[in-house]
């Protein structure tokens, strides 16, 4: 596989005032970039070099911890940038909206579940909306740079929406107020992209 480091799909200041420019810049050019570089270095010359991320994650328990941490950090941030948008927010529509209603009761119930997952993830990690093998939706969270595609987690599925709750994602602007950051996230969600991810996962 030829893994590429993706450009940010919008300007560093595009998500202001919810996520500040400096946070975006450091997060993308330093944190995300370092995960990418270390992931490439970790798979170089190994049999993982020719595999896709899905396959690598499905067997990550047998790979080195560098592959797990950096491969996760690479993939997770790829998804994160995509599901955010300066013109985001609002509500999902169509099939995704129906699926959220049938899985969680309502959009508000889903939001409450997702907020809890993000707020209660102790330490560093992510909250996710995933499509499980039976095509149903679920909310889950993972520590550090793990994700629900990895065979190290109890809850498996394909992430279609993710929120980074490492302190580096919000500390410059929100410091200890993680719930405020989580609240601001809802103003940025690119629901069209999430719906597209959902279609692909089905």
């Amino acid at each position, binding site marked *: 596989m030829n893994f590429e480091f993706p450009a940010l799909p919008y300007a560093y200041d595009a998500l202001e005032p919810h996520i500040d420019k400096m946070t975006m810049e450091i997060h993308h050019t330093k944190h995300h970039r370092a995960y990418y570089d270390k992931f490439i270095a970790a798979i170089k010359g190994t049999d993982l070099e020719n595999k896709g991320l899905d396959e690598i994650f499905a067997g990550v328990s047998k790979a080195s911890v560098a592959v797990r941490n950096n491969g996760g950090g690479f993939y997770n941030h790829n998804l994160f940038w995509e599901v955010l948008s300066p013109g985001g927010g609002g509500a999902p529509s169509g099939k995704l909206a129906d699926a959220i209603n049938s899985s969680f009761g309502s959009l508000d119930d889903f939001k409450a579940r997702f907020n809890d997952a993000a707020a209660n993830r102790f330490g560093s990690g992510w909250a996710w909306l995933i499509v499980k093998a039976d095509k149903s939706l679920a909310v889950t969270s993972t520590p550090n740079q793990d994700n629900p595609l990895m065979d190290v987690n109890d809850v498996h599925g394909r992430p279609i929406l993710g929120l980074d709750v*490492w*302190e580096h994602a919000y500390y410059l602007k929100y410091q200890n107020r993680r719930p405020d950051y989580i609240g601001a996230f809802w103003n940025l969600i690119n629901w069209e992209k999430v719906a597209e991810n959902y279609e692909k996962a089905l």
Partner: protein
Amino acid sequence: MKKISILMPLIAAGMLTVAPAVAQKAESNKAKTVKTAVKGTPVPSVGTASQVKELPAEMSFWMTPAAKLTFPALPYSYNALSDVIDSLTVAIHYDRHHRAYYTNFIKAIEGTEMEVLSIYEIFNKMSEFPVSVRNNGGGFYNHVVYWQNLTPGGGVKPSGLLAEEITKAFGSYDAFITRFADAAKTRFGSGWAWLAVDFKTGELFITSTANQDNPLMNTEERRGFPILGIDVWEHAYYLKYQNKRADYIESFGKIINWKDVEARYQYFLQARKNFLN
């Protein structure tokens, strides 16, 4: 050393409440002392102010029933460490993060059997208690050590017995610093790196723990008494250093309060048998 020996009987008294089960087995009359102590009799006087300084509140800390532990004052001003840690970071870290761990810890043990246990007794049975106690109890204790481990104008090398033990365990002071820094740099995600004294062998060792865990907890593979800890949660350094955790770790040596680290080491040598699991 002289001061330590003066304090020994008091330390011995403190030791009893650290591990009442052990004490009760030993002597029934002493076990009675334990019972009243854990119910919250006033903490015994521990000597003059200068003597207390030698053993930074350690004895009373380990003697106090968890529910009666108080949130300690920061031993310096917010800007005192600003060469290495900026004042906004210290203010938020102490007054928001640390305080929240303390408040949530007290809340988590309220009305439970844990109220009358010492914090070590809780850590020693950590796996049996709710995760909120582990996270917040760890967060409370770890930061107590952290603030006392630091001082403006620190960084003077350790001396005496501790210096000898560091050389014995790691080869040299510089080798220790390198190993300690490596443990701090390679802890992925949130957590701590520690210099600790092995419960069983009494040897110094370096370890790192995830999130707010620490080597006192029975969830750790190698257990020991922490004498120096560095917080590598991003909240400890992000406002000043951002992604450059290594710079924070390398500057950290300048503010280590080796007097405090030595006092903790001495305390453990005296109280060691109470920390066996």
